Each structure stands twice: as structure tokens, then as C-alpha cells.
């Protein structure tokens, strides 16, 4: 049994892809007549490669965070499969799931809500080590101090409580906690959004240094496209529960293929008044439709500036297909024509 479980894992070590997401769905039933459900993640295919940072962007409610929770097995999928390091985590239970979880950790948005106010920093950092029975008690204590030093905090702070730290320092504690059990994959869900600019820069630099040092793979989720482009190797754009485009960080900016990507990128102001004078944002009409009852065909068609309605856009759902640069895919009938 154990041998069978290990064999694919060893083969997977040569696989350049760490996480395979195939046709992942997550529906949250909201009751009502006919079994209505919020289609938070509605058929996502995505891969995350070893050692890369994949940026995931999209507006609030597009399903980014739900997808992150599916990937880290914090939530079961409604349908589809997610393979981590050669193992289908949607089928794992108990001990198998625990072993996988040790390799994937998460850093959350709100450093005030994600640390237990009644635990000391030492206990917070030691908890994952205790959970996975790492080393002796003395070794764990020493490890906690090294973790604090690693993220730039005083190693003698182990007896302090989270409220004694600033937002940026708390986020460092959250990062140290994620690193405690030597994971290979870390999901950062809006990890710098709640921080002040100078503090956010500290955390962004720290995340980059840690990735280089520990060979980490990141899934970096944020609504701030500038931060995502800065940190990522590849970027995936989500809209209403689906990935609409994936490409290299520079290709997606230089020649976006999906009209939504194009609008999203054009709407970000640049800290340069000379550039700003000529920047013409593409303003989208209307609001994001309800994920309970997404539009027919391409779900972006009611807001799309180039949609043919009535026609193919409102009738046929486009699939992710190669467009533009190498390694670039987009789900649009008129990709690149915006």
C-alpha cells in the first residue's frame, strides 16, 4: 500500500509541474428552488510549475481564494482533480492528507486575524512542528528561534503575544509559521494587501529572498496587478469562476489576448505622471454578474467591448486555447482582436 503510494511520487519528482488542476469545480449550495448554488470555481484547468511563482489575479468574487483553498485541500472539490507532486489530493484522507499538507502552507491576508491572540509567538511557530512531530522538543525550540531570525525578528521574542507586534511584523510571523515545516509550496492569499507601502515592500522582498533560498513554489493571489507582475513568473487571470488567460508575466502585459485582461491591465494607474497623462483606461460597462447564474456562452460577453451578441459570444463557451506568445492561452472567440 505504502509502496504503491510512494512510486508515483518518485516519478513525479522529474515532472516540471508541481500542481495539476483539471476541471476543478466548487459549488456552494444556497438552497432555494431547483438547488441554486454559487459557482465559485467553475471548471478551472491550471498548472503550477516547480520553483515558479504563479500569480493569480481577478476582481473580488471571481473565485481566487476558493481555488486556493481547493489546492491546499482545505475544502473538498465538487468535481475535478487536483494533483500535487504526483498525488491526487482530492482522494486523500487521514494520514496521506497530513503528509501532503506538510508540503503546502498558506500565508493569509489579515495578519491580525490569522494569528491566535492567546498564543505566544513561540507557541504559534512551534505548533506546526508539534503537529508533525519534528525533532525533539529542544530542537523545536531552537528551530523557532531560527525561524524568527530568518524573517528578521528578534529570536528572543518567543514569549510575546501577537498584539505586541505591528502589522508587518505579524505578517513576518505568519511567514515564519508557514516555513516551519519546510514546505515546498506556499500559497500567499493577498499576503501584502493589508500592509502599508513601505512595509509591503519589506514583505515582498522577503518572499523573494525566501523563494531563492529555499527553492519554493508560490501561488501568489492578489488583486494588485503591479505587485503580481513584480513577483510572478507567469500570471493567470480569473473571471467569474474561470481562468480566462494564462501567460508569461511580460507577454500578458505586452500583448494580452483576452479583452478582460486587456481592460484589467489598462485600468491600473502607474506612479509616473508623464505616463498617466496618455494612459487611456478601457472602462468596462456594468458590474460583475452573479456567480449563481453566470451569463450564457462566454461569461464576459455582457461587459465585453468586442463581443458579437447575439452570436457566437453569447451562445458558445470559449475554451482555453493557445494564442499570442508561446505558453500563452486565452479563452476568447476573438482573442487578440480587442
Amino acid at each position: 500500500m505504502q509502496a504503491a503510494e510512494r512510486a508515483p511520487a518518485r516519478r513525479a519528482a522529474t515532472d516540471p509541474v508541481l500542481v495539476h488542476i483539471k476541471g476543478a469545480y466548487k459549488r456552494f449550495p444556497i438552497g432555494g428552488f431547483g438547488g441554486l448554488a454559487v459557482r465559485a470555481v467553475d471548471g478551472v484547468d491550471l498548472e503550477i510549475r516547480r520553483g515558479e511563482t504563479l500569480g493569480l489575479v481577478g476582481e473580488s468574487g471571481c473565485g481566487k481564494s476558493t481555488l486556493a483553498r481547493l489546492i491546499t485541500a482545505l475544502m473538498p472539490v465538487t468535481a475535478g482533480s487536483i494533483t500535487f507532486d504526483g498525488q491526487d489530493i482530492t482522494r486523500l484522507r487521514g494520514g496521506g492528507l497530513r503528509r501532503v499538507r506538510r508540503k503546502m502552507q498558506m500565508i493569509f491576508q489579515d495578519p491580525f486575524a490569522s494569528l491566535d491572540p492567546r498564543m505566544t509567538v513561540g507557541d504559534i511557530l512551534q505548533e506546526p512542528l508539534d503537529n508533525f512531530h519534528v525533532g525533539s522538543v529542544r530542537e523545536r525550540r531552537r528551530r523557532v528561534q531560527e525561524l524568527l531570525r530568518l524573517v528578521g525578528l528578534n529570536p528572543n521574542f518567543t514569549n510575546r503575544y501577537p498584539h505586541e507586534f505591528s502589522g508587518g511584523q505579524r505578517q513576518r510571523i505568519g511567514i515564519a509559521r508557514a516555513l516551519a515545516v519546510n514546505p515546498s509550496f506556499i500559497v500567499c492569499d493577498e499576503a501584502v494587501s493589508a500592509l502599508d507601502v513601505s512595509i509591503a515592500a519589506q514583505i515582498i522582498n522577503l518572499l523573494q529572498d525566501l523563494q531563492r533560498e529555499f527553492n519554493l513554489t508560490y501561488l501568489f493571489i492578489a488583486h494588485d496587478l503591479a505587485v503580481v507582475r513584480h513577483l510572478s513568473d507567469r500570471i493567470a487571470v480569473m473571471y467569474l469562476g474561470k481562468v480566462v488567460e494564462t501567460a508569461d508575466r511580460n507577454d500578458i502585459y505586452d500583448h494580452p489576448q483576452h479583452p478582460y485582461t486587456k481592460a484589467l491591465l489598462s485600468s491600473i494607474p502607474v506612479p509616473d505622471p508623464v505616463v498617466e497623462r496618455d494612459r487611456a483606461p478601457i472602462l468596462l460597462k456594468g458590474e460583475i454578474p452573479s456567480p449563481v447564474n453566470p451569463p450564457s456562452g462566454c461569461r464576459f460577453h455582457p461587459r465585453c467591448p468586442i463581443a458579437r451578441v447575439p452570436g457566437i459570444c453569447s451562445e458558445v463557451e470559449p475554451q482555453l486555447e493557445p494564442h499570442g506568445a508561446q505558453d500563452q492561452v486565452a479563452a476568447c472567440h476573438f482573442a487578440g482582436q480587442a
Partner: protein
Amino acid sequence: MAQTLLEVEDLHTQFFTSRGVVRAVDGVSFHVDAGETLGVVGESGCGKTMTALSILRLLPDPGKIVSGRIMFRGQDVTKMTDEEIRDFRGNDVAMIFQDPMTSLNPVTKIGSQIEEAMTAHNRFTEKLARGRVIELLKRVRVPAAESRVKDYPHQFSGGMRQRAMIAMGLSNEPSLLIADEPTTALDVTVQAQIIQLMKQLNRELGTAMMLITHNMALVASLCQRVVVMYAGRIVEEGPVDQIFKSPQHPYTWSLLRSVPRVDESRKDRLVSIKGLPPDLSHMPPGCKFHPRCPFVVAGCKVDPEPSLDEVALGQVARCWVLMRNVKEEDVEEAKKSALSKEAAEKLKAPAGGVGGDAGG
């Protein structure tokens, strides 16, 4: 043409707490001209919002304006009677806040709230005000304004609520609109719509605007002049082009280089400002930025604090060093990694099965 609308002179706002006196605004002077857009930038706790609330005399307890003058069209706001200040708020200066949900009354219809803002000032009769509501909502581009006046705030999306707030702010035709982080709570595509709207309104109505934000890109997009605040004081001020092209205060310089740009193809390291802003009740001597400054010299650490001196045409900065005197290699040093290599090596060593499968 450049007629001065608002002039703040040596404003000191303090909070008297049990922990001591918090100097939230510590000697701030600036002006806003009619029709212009002034950006006020800085991080949380630097005094931007407290400066705005001082102008409207809406300071929360135990805050007080200790000294200084706030001149609006020749009248001192700090000396106004309660009645005068009520007339001043809304009529002359209006403010819109970050979170439109908490600043709207959830149990009153949007239309009635905007109407109330007008009738409260006796500027419009009830009948006139009612007619103006739809006109105002149309002006801020709320679609189907005729039917949406009867909606409650929860029926509006975030962007629409912020539009309604702007409509309310503009309802009495103020000559100055103070916008405190008006787009921070909004999604990027909605933020772009609101920025566009504020640009158009500034052009159409000639309303002057004071934009309070931590987002340098927003300032580049909307403002003509910018004031940079740190620890309750202004550290740099000047025309937007000048400040972005050649910032002279190390804090302004760091702020600009600590945010990634979406149009940047190179993965350059960000400049991160070490440490935290100072405690406003126990401020360091000398330059208040010196404990965090990468270019600090001995003179920065002792009193007197540098004064705001002219460094270029229309640009002033509060610094002994100034960025134009900083050497290139020191700039590179400021971008270096602060990661503890030693700690990293120790953590990588498989202590009792960390990293391997042997533990468990």
C-alpha cells in the same frame, strides 16, 4: 487665476491620551488653489486624515487643534462659531471617505440621503432638492438614476455607493472636495471608473480637490501638486512632475521605489524602508525619518530638525542630505537583501526529519 482657496498655517493637532500627548499634526502649512487637485500622501498614521479632519473641525476626542490657522477665503476656520462651521461644512468644503458602506445610512434611501444633505444647509428648498438628486446621480454616472434614487445603500454595489457619496459631496456645490482614500476599497476596474469620474468632475465643475492617499499612482494620475507627510509633518512638497522625476527627500524617494509598477518588465528589487514609523508621542530627535533613512548622516540624529527649504522651483524638502547628493553605490546598498543567511542555512539542515519523510 491661481487664487488661494485654503491656506493652512503651522497647524498643530494633538491628542491628549493617558500615554502622553500624541502629536498627530505637528506644524503643517500648505495651501490649495481654486480648481486645483492637491495630493496628500504618506503611510497610515502620518497625519494625513487628521489634517483633513482638522480642516473640517471633525476631530475625534481627545483630539484638539492646539495652534495654527486654517484660512478659507480669508476666514479662520479655527475661530468659527458652531453655526458658522455647520454652514462651512458641506457648503464650502465636503469630504468623502474610504468606505462608502459605513458612511451611508443603511436604512434610508440613497435619494433621501442626498436630499437631506442639501436641505440641511437651507440652500435648496425641499422641492428643488428633490429635483436635483436625479441630476446629481446622473452627473456621477449612476445608470438609470430615476429608478435608483429609491434604492437603499445595500442595493448599490461598492462603486455605485462611492458614486452616490461623491454626488452627496457635490450636492451643495462646494469649492473644495476632500477625498480620503476614495478608491482603496474598490476593485481595480471600478477604481478606474471613479478616477475617470473625479477627473471629469474637476474639469466640468472646477471644484478643487484634496486627495488623501497612500497610492502614489493615484496621485500621478489625478493631481497637479503633491504634499508628502511623515510623522505629522510635511517632508516634501512640489509639482507632481517634479516630485516624481526628482524627489529630494529620502522618504519620498523610498515611497516611489517601494511600489512595483505594472508597466515594468524588469524584476528590479524594491526599496524597502526598514523599521516602522515613529511613535507620535515619543518622537526621535533631529529628523523624524533618521532611524529609517538609508542615507543618514550624523547631523540628522540631533536637533535641530531640518526645515522645509526650497530645493528646486516650487519644490521644498525637509532634509540635510537631499537625494541629489546621494552616491549611486549607497542607492544600491539600500536595495540589498536583509535575509539572515545564517538562519537560512541552519533551517535547511534536516533537523530530526524536517524536509524528509523520516519524521511523521
